[in-house]
């Protein structure tokens, strides 16, 4: 019987959701040598089974992608050729006759080895008297490292075969409803109006695994891949990927795995100072490109990325300067401030939660402005929710700079007149590489006697010196014109004054034919909704933070809201979620 997440969620009592998750901690640096013993018990096997039981030997070759993603510049890429006949590695594995045993010798450089095997019976390591494991499809066995050891697959069922498909070093475990105790996901986000930050999401898996591999799994490397998806046969959410953060453990027969999404890498990434264009579309484009460079530096590969044709700077105009700060602070601030009031024009957004997604504008559809990668605007009925909580924050009426006396809104203009200013003198040795952060933000940063200048941006310059002696760093310090010391809400209502540290200096509202973009706008602080809330609901594994939804209240009215955070729990076969939201479209 096939059903869908939507069909089940419409019911009051729905079928138990299928949850699949696991860990892929194959140790790529380890090696394993295999010998398959054919004493007449083998019915079918790949040619050179010794090799083809390793997935790395399978004829998996990246196929060129001419649809827009381009293809990699290494020689390992092929055009899809449907008539190409590869080897049969991976086709049969090693299969015994019905009722027969299988014998494979393994010599692994590490002591944990993952087997993918089907059949009934046990696996015995090291011959008579050795450790015996009851057979299950995904099995981790412990072998003495560096020693040729026998794996005996002892068949207990006269009518079925033993089929071994892969043997790899390391730990590969797949879990499903049959052995999962609980999977708890915290898909995080921060929609606060004062000082939002970017939060990484996390997953915790508890699964039943009857063999004691507690020593082995504590060796699982940090950042090994965890994967998860849930739904119903034929209708699952997109696979979410997380990376191990804490040492895996096994207590009794229960394995505990914890991980964070790729954004966990932001804790090691700084948003460095950078000049972007300040006005209209180009400013938006360059800020979007800067966000992409942050993601690159964190090593995040985007699953979904909204493209944008390159925008070129006009000959004159204002600039804006992104100040040096943590990547999380920058992302939180840019998503709140650096956008147009109409999010279908410009609203750069990065969402992770296991599916790294980047887009620069929302889809305008019936006023709900859904993310372009959201399946549709979700609908949640209050009558299906428990513990419905609603809160109101005090309005923000004025914003000031945290550093008293400093302006909150500035205009920054390049001031490239007259001679360049000497900013600093540096004693250099020929061939040495130097980094400097100068005292002022500049355009046209330059250093004399440089063999090559790698970076010259805002207040940062990096170069390789040509000669030994004194090098001079030059530039045109930008003109920073204070515009407002206090940015005030235009209307009249009771509210508070907040103090923030601006992430970006510059970028005053400028209208153009295309877009009205203000890189330092407090528009959302003044006009974003002050109403937040949360509720317990049955859960939909496809929902992401920052998705919009229609909240159908008990009195029949419909509100549009943005999801801030989803805490989803799969436990004892059931699924439920706590959803935190802010009213309106963020």
């Amino acid at each position: 019987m096939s059903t869908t997440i939507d069909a089940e969620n419409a019911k009051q009592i729905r079928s138990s959701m299928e949850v699949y998750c696991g860990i892929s901690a194959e140790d790529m640096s380890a090696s394993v040598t295999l010998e398959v013993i054919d004493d007449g018990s083998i019915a079918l096997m790949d040619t050179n089974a010794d090799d083809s039981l390793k997935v790395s030997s399978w004829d998996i070759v990246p196929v060129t992608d001419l649809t827009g993603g381009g293809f990699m510049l290494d020689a390992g890429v092929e055009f899809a050729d449907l008539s190409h006949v590869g080897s049969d590695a991976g086709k049969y594995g090693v299969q015994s006759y019905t009722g027969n045993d299988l014998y494979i010798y393994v010599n692994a450089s590490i002591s944990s080895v993952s087997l993918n095997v089907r059949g009934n019976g046990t696996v015995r390591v090291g011959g008579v008297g050795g450790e015996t494991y009851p057979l299950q499809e995904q099995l981790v066995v412990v072998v003495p490292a560096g020693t040729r050891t026998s794996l005996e697959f002892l068949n207990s069922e006269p009518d079925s075969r033993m089929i071994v498909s892969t043997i790899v070093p390391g730990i590969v475990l797949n879990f499903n409803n049959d052995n999962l105790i609980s999977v708890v996901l915290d898909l995080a986000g921060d929609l606060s109006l004062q000082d939002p930050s970017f939060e990484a999401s996390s997953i915790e898996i508890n699964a039943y695994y009857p063999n004691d591999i507690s020593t082995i799994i504590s060796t699982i490397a940090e950042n090994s891949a965890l994967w998860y998806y849930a739904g119903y046969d034929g209708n699952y959410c997109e696979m979410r990927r997380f990376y191990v953060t804490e040492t895996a453990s096994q207590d009794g027969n229960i394995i505990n795995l914890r991980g964070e999404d790729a954004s966990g890498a932001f804790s090691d990434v700084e948003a460095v100072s950078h000049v972007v264009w300040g006005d209209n579309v180009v400013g938006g484009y360059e800020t979007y490109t800067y966000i992409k460079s942050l993601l690159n530096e964190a090593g995040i590969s985007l699953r979904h990325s909204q493209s944008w044709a390159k925008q070129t700077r006009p000959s004159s105009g204002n600039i804006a300067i992104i100040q040096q700060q943590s990547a999380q602070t920058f992302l939180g601030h840019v998503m709140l401030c650096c956008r147009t009031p109409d999010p279908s024009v410009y609203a750069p957004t990065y969402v992770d939660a296991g599916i790294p997604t980047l887009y620069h504008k929302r889809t305008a559809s019936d006023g709900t402005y859904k993310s372009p990668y959201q399946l549709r605007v979700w609908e949640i009925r209050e009558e299906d929710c428990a513990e419905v909580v609603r809160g109101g924050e005090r309005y923000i009426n004025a914003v000031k700079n945290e550093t008293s006396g400093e302006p909150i809104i500035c205009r920054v203009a390049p001031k490239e007149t007259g001679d360049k200013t000497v900013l600093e003198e540096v004693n250099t040795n020929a061939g040495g590489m130097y980094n400097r952060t100068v005292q002022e933000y500049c355009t046209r940063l330059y250093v004399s006697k440089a063999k090559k200048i790698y970076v010259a941006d805002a207040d940062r310059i990096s170069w390789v010196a040509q000669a030994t002696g004194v090098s001079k760093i030059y530039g045109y310090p930008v003109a920073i014109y204070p515009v407002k010391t206090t940015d005030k809400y235009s209307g009249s209502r009771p509210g508070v004054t907040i103090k923030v540290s601006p992430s970006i200096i510059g970028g005053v509202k400028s209208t153009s034919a295309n877009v009205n973009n203000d890189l330092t706008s407090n528009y959302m602080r003044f006009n974003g909704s002050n109403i937040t809330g949360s509720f317990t609901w049955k859960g939909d594994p496809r929902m992401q933070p920052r998705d919009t939804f229609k909240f159908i209240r008990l009195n029949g009215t419909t509100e549009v809201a943005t999801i801030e955070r989803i805490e989803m729990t799969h436990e004892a076969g059931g699924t439920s979620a706590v959803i935190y939201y802010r009213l309106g479209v963020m």
Partner: protein
Amino acid sequence: MPYFNTITIDGETYYRPNGFTPAREYVYAGEYVTCTGKTIADVVGWKYSDIALTWDALPQDQIDNLLALNGEAVTMTWTDADGATASETVIPSTHSLTATRFMNGTNPVWRDIQTELRFLNVHND
């Protein structure tokens, strides 16, 4: 061939208890009560409901076996009215019996026996 007169618990045979027709119930998870009082849950499967096995009388050898069940999980099998044999993991708990026995010649017989039983398996077919 189905046997309607007896059930087995942990391999030992007993006379069929009085009115022995185990009921089934759904097992729910992720259950919560909404703000309108509605119960929302995921149905995981079904299991047999807890049952009290009662006998008017049992012979000595069956009582000995029954009292030896000390609360560990054992397998119970019986034949349903439709001829299908069911086999479930159960945990026997409280036993209660009338503290008299009736000697039918040389065959001791115990009266008014009751054993509480909990079914463990949840089925999702």
